[in-house]
């Protein structure tokens, strides 16, 4: 049966050995870049009678670390799933004049995770947090010296992480919603269902595949969460597996074996999820067709949708930005704002500090180069996955390996790259090259999946029409496929640029004191307690990302972000 399904998909083949050799080289490169660092970590952890494992898992607090990790992942997943689904449904029900609000659920992606976390710290830190200070004016809290909220506790780390994951869940769910035709909803409404009835009886069941897929990704991201626990939990003793890995590498002497062992549960889980998705979804994803009218045109417009999205936008974007802006404009961070003392000095300091400016350049250059490499690599992998039916083994390998960086936390790749490239034969420690390499690896899943979706959506006939018109596959690629995929490629470029200029976890491990990126430099400022500079730096990061996105929109049209 599978073969019959496969039949109409069989492609214009490259009829020689050229294709096979090219794909073999590609698969070998992927294995070298992605699998080798993971392999080296494990072989180290198992060395000396698995000393890494005994050292890491013999500790008293290991149970607590794992329990915190699981709690963090589970509860932030719940928050993200609920919010992401509600947001996706709400955006589909926006009244026409509020249609511009559709951009709101993806906008928080432009705000770097580190900026978001420190922004909330400025608001909800028990002592000088602005929101806490404001709440202490309330009659029932006016006896408090600090609080009432303590952002440095696991509960609030979970809430913030959940908020951070919401945009990801939203992307998956809204993509799923786009494939539900308006007729399905209208049929339910004309059968007498209310909005809530439609949601629970029709929308949710139809969304199940996207929810499972998006939930799987969000769970992995939650398990690999690093930024929140590190920035907020370090001083209060909140430990998760990823922060343990970082601690084992950054303490002196660094213990790579123990760090590798600490990451193993996350690697195993990532592998399980990646393989599981292949088994469960398999080739089905290749036959997704988006028939019918788009979901958008549901006739009942809901006012609650506007309210929901506006509230989300305020909480996820506006509030942390306000926190950042206030702190960035003050000479020192305290609970009371002295409006007369507001100053731009922090930005001046930022621009005058050469190593901070260097970190901006490094971020932009490394991200841009990585994106430039990722687009063609992703295009080749996508081509292999969509059309490489005559290379089943290479294709399977490429499929699994290219999905790994999405399943395995960035911290682990950071440790793996640090280990691999501080030792012969290739020593790259302290160079921008190692940052570029790890960035390429992190972005391969995005470059591949986004272009693969576009290739699948393109279908076969445009390509067959070109071949029957007498065009070689090279000409077809250049004249037909690439122009038609331009919007998708630009979306992928914009997304990868955003994610990379925000990159923190892997960068923190492969950076050196002299080669920093924006996120790691911000972390150093945070660790030193230079809070006003942290705020200014976070805003600068946001601005750099914003400029990149604006550039992408300028080239690719305004809907570059819509395609995400």
């Amino acid at each position, binding site marked *: *049966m*599978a*073969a*019959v399904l*496969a*039949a109409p998909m*069989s492609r*214009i*083949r490259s*009829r020689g050995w050229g294709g096979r050799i090219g794909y073999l080289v590609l698969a070998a490169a992927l294995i070298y870049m992605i699998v080798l660092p993971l392999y080296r970590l494990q072989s180290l952890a198992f060395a000396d009678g698995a000393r890494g494992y005994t050292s890491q898992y013999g500790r008293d607090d290991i149970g607590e670390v794992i329990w915190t990790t699981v709690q963090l992942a589970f509860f932030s997943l719940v928050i993200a799933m609920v919010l992401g689904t509600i947001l996706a449904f709400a955006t589909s029900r926006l009244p026409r004049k509020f249609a511009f609000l559709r951009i709101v659920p993806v906008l928080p992606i432009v705000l770097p995770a580190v900026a978001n976390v420190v922004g909330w710290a400025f608001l909800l830190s028990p002592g000088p947090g602005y929101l806490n200070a404001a709440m202490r004016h309330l009659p029932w809290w006016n006896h408090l010296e600090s609080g009432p909220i303590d952002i440095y506790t696991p509960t609030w780390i979970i809430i913030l992480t959940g908020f951070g994951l919401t945009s990801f869940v939203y992307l998956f769910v809204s993509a799923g919603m786009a494939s539900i035709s308006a007729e399905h909803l209208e049929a339910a409404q004309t059968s007498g269902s209310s909005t809530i009835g439609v949601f629970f009886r029709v929308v949710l069941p139809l969304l199940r595949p996207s929810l499972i897929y998006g939930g799987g990704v969000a769970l992995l991201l939650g398990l690999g969460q690093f930024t929140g626990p590190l920035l907020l939990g370090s001083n209060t003793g909140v430990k998760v597996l990823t922060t343990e890995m970082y601690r084992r590498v950054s303490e002196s002497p660094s213990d790579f074996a123990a760090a590798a062992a600490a990451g193993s549960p996350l690697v195993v889980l990532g592998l399980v999820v990646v393989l599981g998705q292949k088994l469960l979804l398999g080739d089905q994803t290749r036959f997704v067709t988006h028939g019918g009218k788009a979901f958008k045109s549901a006739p009942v417009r809901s006012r609650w949708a506007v309210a929901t999205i506006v509230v989300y936008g305020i909480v996820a974007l506006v509030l942390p930005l306000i926190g950042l802006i206030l702190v960035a404009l003050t000479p020192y961070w305290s609970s009371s704002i002295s409006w007369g003392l507001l100053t731009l000095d922090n930005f001046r300091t930022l621009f005058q500090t050469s190593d901070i400016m260097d970190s901006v350049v490094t971020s932009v250059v490394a991200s841009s180069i990585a994106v430039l490499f990722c687009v063609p690599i992703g295009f080749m992998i996508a081509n292999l996955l969509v059309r490489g039916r005559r290379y089943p083994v290479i294709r399977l390998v490429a499929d699994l390996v290219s999905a790994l960086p999405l399943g395995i936390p960035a911290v682990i790749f950071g440790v793996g790259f640090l280990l691999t490239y501080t030792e012969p034969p290739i020593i790259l420690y302290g160079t921008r090259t190692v940052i570029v390499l790890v960035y390429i690896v992190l972005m391969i899943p995005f470059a591949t999946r986004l272009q693969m979706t576009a290739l699948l959506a393109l279908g076969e*006939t*445009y390509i*067959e*029409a*070109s*071949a*029957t*018109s*007498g*065009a*070689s*596959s090279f*000409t077809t690629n250049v*004249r*037909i496929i690439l*122009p*038609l995929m331009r919007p998708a490629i630009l979306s992928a470029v914009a997304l990868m640029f955003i994610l990379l200029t925000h990159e923190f976890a892997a960068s923190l491990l492969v950076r050196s004191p002299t080669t920093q990126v924006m996120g790691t430099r911000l972390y150093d400022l945070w660790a030193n307690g230079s809070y006003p500079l942290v705020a200014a730096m976070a805003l600068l990061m946001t601005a750099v990302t914003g400029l990149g996105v604006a550039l992408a929109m300028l080239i690719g049209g305004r809907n570059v972000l819509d395609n995400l």
Partner: protein
Amino acid sequence: MSGITISNLTKRFGSNTIVDDLELTIDEGEFVVLLGPSGCGKTTTLRCLAGLETPEGGTISFGDRTVFDAKTHTDVATHRRNIGMIFQSYALWPHMTVRDNIGYPLKVRRKKEALRSGAVDKAAAMVDTGHLLDRYPSQLSGGQQQRVAVARGLVAEPDLVLFDEPLSNLDARLRDQVRTQIHQLHQRLGFSAVFVTHDQSEAFALGDRLAIMKDGRLEQCDTPQRVFDEPGSDYVAAFIGMGNRLVLTRHHEGWQTANGDVLDLGSRSPERGGADEIIARLRPADLHLHRAVEDAPHGSTVLHATLVTTEFGGRHYDVLVDVAGERLTLQADTREHGAWLPTAEEGAPVVVSFNPTDVRTYAADPARSAERESVAV
């Protein structure tokens, strides 16, 4: 170029044999229609001709040039076969104007001379799309898009033009227009063509020859007139519009229906010594409805039936009657039967007559008649 030869062509998907040892020749300038229900292998055959599928066995030659030979592993790439193809979904590239779409086969084949001498404009004018050259496909109607696609398929004067159900996505009126246009173009330009369809009226209108396929094999290959007059098998008869089917058994005075009518099939009666059970095939238009046996014309063969349903169709009623458990459809003139038919009740006894020369008979084959059910058109 002197014609296309397909021999022993076999294509499998997994364990399913889609095209089974197929033999077919297409003379130069001939318009061959591959006709059959979905899944009969007609599209796969077309795609093998285009080089979009790689067959497991057989050979395909364009004139004396072998483009595919399983034994010698010859498999000329699609873009080197000098063909033109028109797709069901039009497949006009949305990022190119009509002019660029039509000019593409000339450009990629480096036919600069043709491009300079206005071949694109000529091809567009041929299909009445000369005024649309600077538009994008999304600005065209379905019919216009398909005409542009036809121009693109023909512009480079390929050795063979392949049509993959090109009219299926068009609504009925446009379908007739584009069909007529394709027919005129073929008469004028005389290209060799293979046209895939499941629509018998398209096949009759366009084909110099019809190749009716079943289970990956040719069931009958002949001129439209011959196929219409003498369907080679029960399967072909059913497919080209002889939807009415009666099982008859041998009787000493002729052939008997299950409800006891004895029919004289005249010259269409199979010879003695043949099968004792036959299938009779009749077109709905060849059956006539009467209230009583006396109303039937002299010399016609008469069946007793009961009325099932009547649908108003303008000049005629579409009538469904039951003859010994078999459902027959026929058309009854509104003026002739308007007085009684609309008010006649279900189960009312009626009489159906036909001219014995209009019937076609085939040896009954239980396995085949079961298959036919899935082919009902």
